[in-house]
């Protein structure tokens, strides 16, 4: 129980993909104009991140490693995540036209998102056991989705302010992300 918990905390908070590892930061800034849209985007990104990381992990552990084909991993990771995004996008268009109209670009760009690939790479080099890696993937994906939500709420507050024109928008988001990173850095060593 304690290991499970600490793994999730480690993945979601201490090694947060977006704000500590700085992977997939573009998703934080570019695709979430309103909060309700970000909730959907967070869900979609979780739906891409978690299965992709799991499949990548399993393929890596069950096929690449035994066969000694680890040089293929980048190719494999990219094609798996592209396949998952394509599948998701297709289903969206078919079943949920409004959702697709709102997020199709973000979802398609996620196939080459560094968060997906980066998570898979981090996992493939880590030494922990396969179940722990799967739990870690879950935590990391959930942490990414939650940081999307937190940042969307923060962005809305920032946009409401009367900041100087030169700093309005992305510069201020970057400053905020920096300060937030500083705070999350403080959690280092927690697990």
């Amino acid at each position, binding site marked *: 129980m304690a290991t499970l918990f600490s793994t999730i905390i480690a993945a979601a908070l201490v090694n947060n993909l977006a704000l500590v590892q700085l992977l997939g930061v573009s998703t934080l800034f570019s695709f979430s104009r309103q909060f309700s849209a970000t909730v959907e985007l967070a869900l979609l990104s979780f739906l891409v991140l978690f299965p992709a990381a799991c499949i990548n992990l399993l393929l890596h552990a069950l096929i690449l490693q035994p066969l000694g084909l680890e040089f293929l991993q980048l190719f494999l990771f990219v094609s798996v995540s592209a396949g998952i995004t394509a599948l998701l996008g297709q289903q969206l268009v078919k079943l949920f*036209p*409004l959702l697709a109209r709102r997020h199709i670009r973000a979802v398609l760009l996620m196939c080459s998102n560094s968060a997906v690939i980066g998570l898979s790479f981090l996992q493939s080099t880590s030494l922990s056991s396969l179940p722990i890696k799967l739990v870690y993937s879950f935590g990391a994906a959930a942490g990414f989705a939650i940081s999307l939500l937190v940042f969307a709420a923060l962005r809305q507050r920032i946009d409401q302010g009367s900041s100087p024109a030169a700093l309005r928008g992305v510069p201020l988001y970057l400053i905020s992300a920096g300060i937030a990173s500083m705070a999350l850095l403080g959690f280092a060593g927690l697990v």
Partner: protein
Amino acid sequence: MTPLAENLFFQLLVGGSLLGSLLCAIAWGVAGLRKRLQEQRFLVDRINSILPQTQCGRCGHPGCRPYARAIATGEAINRCPPGGDRAIRRLSLLLNEARVPLDPAHGEIESAKVAVIREAECIGCTKCIVACPVDAIIGAAKHMHTVIASECTGCDLCIEPCPVDCIDLVERAPAFRYWSLAALATDPLSGEPCHD
């Protein structure tokens, strides 16, 4: 003596309650999602309900619904002058797109209009009656026509067909508005903006 937090029973308790609340949250999320997804089906209807329904065709489509269909498949949202900023704002929220100014190629934002027939000049040709998309013009052949003001959308489709040019578009009286945000934004004492 181990701390309370390392007690197995305590851990199970906390873990169980956390898991339980997680499950509850998921159940809620799924239920909420189901509701939201039910709204998904009628994308064209939802877009159409935002458009002003003047049926003026200035967007390049023969009516509001065709334009809504086009928007659903990816057309720009800023081609509706009668809808103006309000429609663009609501469409951008619905479709999660950037708020863009109105496309000037399709006309400019105007205040609401209403068509008025100069009744003395009307020859009763019924051409405008045929053209009106909302049946707001009444009158019979060879008789004077008139516009039901409350039904008129101000689409100007009746102007073109009129052979004697006896139809005018006049501005509707704007809604009574007293409190203005612009006035609030300036300091009454110094006249400077209170916040920028």
